[in-house]
């Protein structure tokens, strides 16, 4: 008998105007010792399935139809009190963000002991012994000592291990993990996935893993369920589904996943992906206002030359000099970017890659080294006119599509602001015309100008961001994790757009990402960063095929293998 069986599940969220159906007609089974992955993009309803099983649907959600069985016993219709007894005892849960999942004011021990004693009839000492055993089992060294510490004394990966230990306290039969590795770095992600796989096999637990990440699915799951707009579109053995997808949505989803092993020219545009909006009106770049971006004199040597760049932040101030503490975010980094090329910077969080972007654009002032742009030393500029002239030539696209646009301004004024500020147009009518053209060109259509940012989805907002960046007619574009907040299918569209624009306008790009696969699709040359240092710079293919630095090799080995995935529709470069 299956540990978990879901039959015809339908979950609704009654709202003011209409009832929102989050999940409909979902049928799933999970066996002991096996891992079922539920994959889908945001809005697919995958988290709702997990919450429905554990009985913690957010208000005002409710199960409208269907049944949920745990070991053959129906659990969705149980009274609240009995549902609560199942939680922790029979069903464990792991949340996404380990930094906020633990009570900051209680020691790890007291959180473990209270959970163990809630479910098992153990004395305080026995519970403590079990807590130490669990902490040891999830791979935290020095368990008897570490257990007495508070959550903030653990790193993110270690905290996720504590969360897993808490979920396993009472030997549950089913563990639900909702995006368990999304908040973690690649190297930590690999360790946590390894741990989950091991615990699942050793303890014969059934596991339901909810994720948006095909890598996670390919890595650890036995079965996979693909969800789209609240419905289950494909369900089967992982190798089968990923290798030979049947449903068109699954096909398009898989073809949109960037692969570290293959470099492709463009992501295939498939149906089932959010429509980009009005069809792009063709403009003749040679004569258009935008095309004047190409009119810069060709720089001699590299367009951007960074040497010995350093950035030191003060982390603890004190009157006494020796007691001040510093953090070197960037240490003596040097690299060049040639005109027209795309240079990639890759590294884990805290490696200093975003700091470099902010140093180049002048958001921070470097504490050492030099930045030369088109032959001009940027760190020595003091004349405001010169600074503005430089600023105009380099623009940036940010990570978070939700905070990178001013919510109180219409899209038209957001894009018009740089044009007006730098006096790039001679009249109001011309500004209007340029904004319309820009919106058309990024695939939104001119009508989008009258709306406010909140009326757009994440991918559309990122298009607005791109239009704003292009509005100063830059020759150099910095993209700081431009797609890491987006769903894969949207990511594929934005990456295509960036590639097109670059070729069309002859832009030089610095592309920053934590995702090696994305970097591989976008860049000519790549720099690998760790702890503020640049470990290695190499041509794209060389880096993936013959990595030199040990850290690069480690990063590559941690990449989830996507060889299972079908390569239908892909044209390699």
């Amino acid at each position, binding site marked *: 008998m299956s540990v978990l069986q879901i039959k015809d599940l339908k979950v609704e969220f009654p709202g003011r105007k209409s009832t929102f159906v989050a999940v409909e007609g979902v049928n799933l089974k999970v066996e002991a010792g096996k891992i079922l992955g539920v994959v889908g993009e945001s809005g697919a309803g995958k988290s709702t399935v997990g919450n429905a099983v554990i009985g913690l649907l957010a208000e005002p959600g409710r199960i409208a139809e269907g049944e949920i069985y745990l070991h053959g016993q129906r659990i969705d219709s149980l009274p609240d009190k009995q549902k609560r007894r199942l939680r922790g005892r029979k069903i464990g*849960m792991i*949340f996404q963000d380990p930094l*906020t999942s633990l009570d*900051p004011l209680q020691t790890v021990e007291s959180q473990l002991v209270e959970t163990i004693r809630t479910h098992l009839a153990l004395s305080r000492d026995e519970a403590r012994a079990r807590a130490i055993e669990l902490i040891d089992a999830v791979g935290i060294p020095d368990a008897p000592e570490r257990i007495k510490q508070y959550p903030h004394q653990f790193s993110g990966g270690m905290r996720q291990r504590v969360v897993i230990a808490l979920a396993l306290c009472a030997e549950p039969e089913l563990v639900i993990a909702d995006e368990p590795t999304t908040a973690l770095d690649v190297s930590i992600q690999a360790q946590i996935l390894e741990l989950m796989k091991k615990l699942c096999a050793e303890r014969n637990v059934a596991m339901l893993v909810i994720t948006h990440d095909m890598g996670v699915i390919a890595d650890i799951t036995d079965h996979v369920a693909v969800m789209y707009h609240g419905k289950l579109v494909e369900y089967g053995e992982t190798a089968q589904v990923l290798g030979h997808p049947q449903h068109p949505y699954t096909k398009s989803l898989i073809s949109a996943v960037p692969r570290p092993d293959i470099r492709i020219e463009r992501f295939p545009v498939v149906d089932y992906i959010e429509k980009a909006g009005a069809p792009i009106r063709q403009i003749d770049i040679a004569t258009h206002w935008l095309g004047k971006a190409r009119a810069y004199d060709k720089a001699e040597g590299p367009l951007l030359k960074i040497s010995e760049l350093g950035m030191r932040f003060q982390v603890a101030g004190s009157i006494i000099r020796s007691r001040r503490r510093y953090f070197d975010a960037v240490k003596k980094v040097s690299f060049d970017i040639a005109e027209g090329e795309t240079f990639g910077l890759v590294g884990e969080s805290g490696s200093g890659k975003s700091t470099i972007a902010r140093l180049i654009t002048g958001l921070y002032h470097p504490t050492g080294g030099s930045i030369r742009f088109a032959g001009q030393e940027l760190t020595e500029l003091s004349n405001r006119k010169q600074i503005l002239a430089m600023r105009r030539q380099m623009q940036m696209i940010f990570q978070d599509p939700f905070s990178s646009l001013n919510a109180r301004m219409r899209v038209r004024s957001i894009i018009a602001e740089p044009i007006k500020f730098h006096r790039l147009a001679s009249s109001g009518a011309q500004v209007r015309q340029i904004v319309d053209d820009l919106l058309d060109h990024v695939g939104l259509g001119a009508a989008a100008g009258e709306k406010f940012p909140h009326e757009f989805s994440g991918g559309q907002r990122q298009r607005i961001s791109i239009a704003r960046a292009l509005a100063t007619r830059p020759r150099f574009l910095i993209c700081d994790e431009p797609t890491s907040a987006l769903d894969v299918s949207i990511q594929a569209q934005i990456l295509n757009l960036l590639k097109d624009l670059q070729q069309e306008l002859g832009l030089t790009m610095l592309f920053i990402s934590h995702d090696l696969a994305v970097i591989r699709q976008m860049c000519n040359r790549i720099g690998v960063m760790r702890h503020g240092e640049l470990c290695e710079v190499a041509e794209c293919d060389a880096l993936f095929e013959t990595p030199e630095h040990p850290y690069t090799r480690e990063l590559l080995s941690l990449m989830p293998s996507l060889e299972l995935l079908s390569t239908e529709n892909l044209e390699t470069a």
Partner: protein
Amino acid sequence: MLGFAVRRLMQAIVVLLVVALLSFSLFRFVGDPVNMMVGIETSIQEREALRERLGLNDPIPVQFGRFVVKAAQFDFGTSYQFHQPVSELFAKRIPATLELSFMSALFALAVGVPMGIYAGLNRESRLSKLFLSVSLVGISLPTFFIGILLIFLFSVTLQWLPSYGRGEVVKIGSWWTTGLLTWSGLKALIMPSITLGLYQMTLIMRLIRAEMLEVIRTDYIKFARARGLPDRIVHFRHALKNTLVPVITITGLQLGALIAFATITETVFQWPGMGIMFLQAVQNVDIPIMSAYLLLTAFLFVVINFIVDILYFLIDPRLRVERA
């Protein structure tokens, strides 16, 4: 811990010095101290002599230094109205004000905290909505009007409670007097304490409710529920403790404010405390009393803040590590 305490102490001293400067400027530059002290018939020579004796011809920094040293010894000069040392006047009246403030604080905490917790945990229940409505009326009725209504109801109409004064008081030690030990003293405390404490009570209640609602939505509370912990543990061990950090700061500030708000209550109930004296001083421009009162409230505030900071330190382990 020690380093933390020392740093806080230094900050407190800086605050007190700034207030002392304010207080000193009030004394020195608002009107001419000599003119305030003497009558019209005093000759110019006598005025000059007094000016010299008070040290008003010395450089300003020297005068300020002297002011601070004297203030540290509780010497605030002589009242213009009463021609008595300010410290003696205060000593007579401090017990009345502190006793009143203490009783109000007790009332505000004992009633406000449980109401706040209940309303935070049971957001939709009828009783919480009632609490919320009552609290809104509580913050909308001005303190003095509450006092007047209570007097009208319980003193004028029903004649149950006295409308003014402290009742019979008992002397403890050389200068402390208390109304807590006699029946009439206790009766006299009831209305003023409620009047003074009601506003703080509603504030505390609303604050705890708001913080509770916020904490209940955090991930760690959701995770605690997902582990099947009983409500009792989720609510009191996890949620309540996490609301304490912000609640303690504001509550500390509010209790400190009681001393100043006592001015109003004391006026309504003719309570013989510092507040009434301060008010009279404001109306008659009796600067020594005003500046002494200013320093005294600042001092009490600083003490309360210091205690709050130490409590913080004990509750939140994150502070302990960062500062160690």
